[in-house]
Structure formats: structure tokens, C-alpha cells
């Protein structure tokens, strides 16, 4: 209790904590919503690959002094996605191997580029693991704009997203641009990674995409409810992650991901309809009866 009041006091006093919480809430909602579609389309690994492939783009943008570093990130993220598609269509190498190759190749390129930048302002640790307690006003604007644009697109194209995910053949048959939707989602994944860079970092962003969505998936059978719950879990994880990292002085991104993982574990065992423990209990009760 004392810690909580201490935390609230700190939040009212320090702008950096307010920024951290705003960034966390935005990323929680953004990743929560986009993540639902990533899970349902079976693109979790693709998300992992794209988030790693963003690294060389970010570093290159710094090197060239480009102010909009998200442009570089989107370019390398999307190129990696295209590369994965190219390998799996033009060779007998399967999708998961193609993802493994490009994920590591692009990430390695990013690391090599960073090491050429000795003694500059680029802090590789912060790009990889986030540094939410150092979120600037500019960072907030970037994260906020990406969140607004992506959520507006999801709202506008909800119908297309749902049908092309649920029944792609039917979507194509009625003339929906199924392939275009797929590639736009790759661009969105790159944008989401950029938006989450400061909060959880490149390595852990995929957890924010998948874990809250998967938790929600276990709890409902309706997509609108899943989207809502997923965002709530994303926000709860982000805010409590910031809290724990402030109080106990531990890494913020990792704390956020741990909270999300704990929520998932609870849902996995205790979801009313699908929970593992709930099913064991029902079995035991009916077994005795």
C-alpha cells in the first residue's frame, strides 16, 4: 500500500513517469489490437522476424542522420517480410526456416552496423530492450501517431480484416484484395515495432503482440470482446510493469512482459470454458459422480 501511494506521488511529480505510463498505455492498446489479428492469422513468427528486421533500418537512419527513423525501420521490416515470402516460394525451404534465416540475418546486419558507430548517441541496449523511463515528448508523439493511424485503419477495414483472416478463400471470391491486406499487415507490424521500441524494445515486442491477445483468445469466443480484452491486458501489463520497475528498480520492458505472461498463465489454467485446471476439476467431479 505504501509503495502504491509512493508510486502515485512519483507519477504526479515526475514527467518522465507520466510519459512512461502514457507510452505504456498506447503500446498496450496498439499491440493488443494488432496482436489479435497476428495470432488468428498464425503470423506470430512473422511478427518476431519483422520486429528484429527493424534494427538495421533504425541504425541506418541514425547513420544517415534521417530524422524520421521509422521510415528506415518500415523499409527493412517490409523487405524482410518480402524476403521470407521469396525464399519459401522459390525454394523448397519452408516458411519457418525462411523466417529463421532472415530474422537472424537482418538482426546481425543491425548489430554490425551499430558496432561501426563507436561512441555515438545510439544505445543498442535501449533499442533492444527499451527504455521507457526515458521516453521524450517526441517519442510520445511518434507512438501516439502510429497508434491513432493503425487503430483507425483497423476500424475502417475491420470487415476486410475479419473475413480475410477467417475465410481467405471466400474473401478472395468476393473480390477482397487478400494479398494486399497481407502486405499491409507487414507494414503495420514494422510500425508497431517502432512504436514499441522505447517501451519494450525490439526483442520483447513480439511478447506484447502475442501474449495479451492469446490470453484474450482463451477467454472469449467473439472477436470484438477479444480485441477489447487483449488491449486491457496490454495496458494492465504495461502500467504494472512500469510500477514494478520503478519500485524495485528492475528492467521495465522485461517487467511488462513478465506481467503479461503471468496473466496468460492464469487464463491458461482458469479460463471458465477452456482452462486446463477447470477441465481437470470438471473431470474429477463428473468422474466421482
Amino acid at each position, binding site marked *: 500500500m505504501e509503495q502504491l501511494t509512493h508510486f502515485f506521488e512519483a507519477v504526479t511529480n515526475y514527467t518522465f513517469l507520466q510519459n512512461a505510463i502514457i507510452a505504456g498505455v498506447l503500446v498496450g492498446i496498439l499491440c493488443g489490437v494488432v496482436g489479435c489479428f497476428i495470432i*488468428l492469422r498464425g503470423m506470430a513468427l512473422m511478427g518476431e522476424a519483422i520486429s528484429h528486421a527493424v534494427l538495421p533500418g533504425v541504425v541506418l537512419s541514425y547513420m544517415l542522420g534521417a530524422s524520421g527513423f521509422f521510415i528506415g525501420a518500415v523499409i527493412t521490416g517490409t523487405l524482410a517480410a518480402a524476403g521470407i515470402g521469396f525464399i519459401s516460394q522459390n525454394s523448397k525451404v519452408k516458411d519457418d526456416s525462411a523466417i529463421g534465416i532472415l530474422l537472424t540475418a537482418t538482426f546481425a546486419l543491425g548489430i554490425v552496423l551499430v558496432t561501426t558507430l563507436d561512441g555515438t548517441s545510439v544505445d543498442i541496449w535501449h533499442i533492444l530492450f527499451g527504455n521507457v523511463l526515458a521516453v521524450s515528448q517526441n517519442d510520445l508523439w511518434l507512438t501516439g501517431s502510429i497508434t491513432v493511424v493503425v487503430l483507425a485503419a483497423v476500424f475502417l477495414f475491420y*470487415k476486410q480484416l475479419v473475413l480475410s*483472416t*477467417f475465410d481467405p478463400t471466400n474473401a478472395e471470391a*468476393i473480390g477482397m484484395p487478400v494479398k494486399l491486406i497481407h502486405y499491409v499487415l507487414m507494414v503495420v507490424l514494422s510500425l508497431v515495432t517502432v512504436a514499441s521500441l522505447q517501451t519494450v524494445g525490439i526483442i520483447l515486442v513480439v511478447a506484447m503482440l502475442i501474449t495479451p491477445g492469446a490470453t484474450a483468445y482463451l477467454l472469449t469466443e*467473439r472477436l470484438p*470482446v477479444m480485441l477489447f480484452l487483449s488491449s486491457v491486458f496490454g495496458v494492465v501489463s504495461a502500467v504494472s510493469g512500469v510500477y514494478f520497475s520503478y519500485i524495485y528498480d528492475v528492467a521495465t520492458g522485461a517487467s511488462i512482459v513478465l506481467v503479461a505472461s503471468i496473466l496468460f498463465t492464469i487464463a491458461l489454467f482458469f479460463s471458465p470454458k477452456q482452462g486446463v485446471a477447470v477441465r481437470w476439476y470438471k473431470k474429477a467431479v463428473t468422474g466421482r459422480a
Partner: protein
Amino acid sequence: MAPAVQVSNISVSYHGETALDDVSFTAEPSQLIGIIGPNGAGKSTLIKTIMGMIGRNEGEVEVLGQPISKVRKRVAYVPQRRSIDLDFPVRVEDVVVMGSYAHLAWWKRPGKKDKEKALTCLEKVGMLDFSHRQIGELSGGQQQRVFIARALMQDSDVLFLDEPFAGIDVASESIIIDLLRDLRNQGKTLFVVHHDLSKVETYFDTIMLLNQRLLGFGAKDEVFQPELVSRAYDGNVAVLGEGKEQVVVTS
């Protein structure tokens, strides 16, 4: 009146392998057509080519006298059940409402009228009581009825159904076949991909025999002949019975 579907000399190949070879036919409206052939005969490929979902090497396709891109709204397509994500968090009534998407502008959402119509479509397939269930909780036959209700929702003139009778219960089977006959009597043209030879004669009035090439297309009495069927199935067919001949696939 323009033919429902007119296909002229289409050929399709995947990665250099022939899937369809010089197929031509003209299907007049108001027919229930069974597309019959062994696995890999190109039955689904034919439908997808007519729908413009697969590129063709050569040939022309017209649906209702026009290129498919102009008449998509008037053509409904029920894919194979296994191409659909049945764990998707969606309820039966929401699946049926998706049938309205073909008619909605890209920014529009289905409205109250669409939802009411979805319920009447569900009633027609005897699935109204299941409208709040998640789609994966239903049996295969019940799911198939829901997907047919979705196609009804579209009010199309031409319907393509890919293996609607695969792995379903007897009750669903008879509901579906009655419904398909009703639609035919209303003047609609239905193409049904089917691989179980035993029911062919009872289900369809027109039969298309396909094995990459078109081996027969016409009234069932003319096309469903042991010799033709045997050719379509590369000889893996046994002829049983005496007077009225029956054919059975042996492998």
C-alpha cells in the same frame, strides 16, 4: 438470356504441371451441376479459375455474359470447410452476416436489416437455434449448413460449392440437397464439386466429368456412363449391377 457460365478453351498449370487442359463448356441457367472426378482432377481449380482467383494460361471465361470482375456480387462461393479457420472467435449468426459483405461498399458495415436477414437464412438451413454458438462447436454438417446460409445471404444467381457433402451427417445432407434443388427451381445455377460416385445420380441432373480434360458434360443419363466414368477415374472403377448399371471407384 446469357448462359450462366461460358468457358472457352481454358488451360491452367501450376509450377509447370498441367491442372486443366483445354476445357470448354456452356452452362445454361437453372441447373444443378455436379462436377465429378478423382483427386487432383482439377475440380477446385476449375471453380477458382472461373472465379478469377487463379490465373489461366489461355482461354476465356464469362459469367452471366460478362467477365467475372463485373459480376462478383451475383456469384457466391462456398469453399471447402478445411480452408476455413473453425477456431476463429466468431458466432454462427456473425458468419452468416458475412454473406452481406459482397454487396457492401468497402467502408460500410452490415446493418440491422442484414442481421435480420441472416436469421431468416439460418432458419432455411434449420440452424436458427444455434445462432449464438461459436462456429467450431458445431458438427461438420451443421457447419456446412451455416456456410450455405451465408451463401444464401448473398442472393446470388450462380453458386459454386466445393465438396459440401464431404464428411457430413445424413440429416444435414438431405437438408442441403433439398435446399440446392429449391435454388435451382428458383432459376439459380449451382456447381457442386463432388467425389462420392454413389450419390451422383440422385443428387444432380447435369454432370460434368473432369480429369484435367473435360470428359463429359450434359444430362446425367448421357454422361454418367460406366465407360466415361471409368476413363475419368483412369480405370479404377468397377461396374456392378446388371440392368441399371452402377459404378464404384475401386481405389
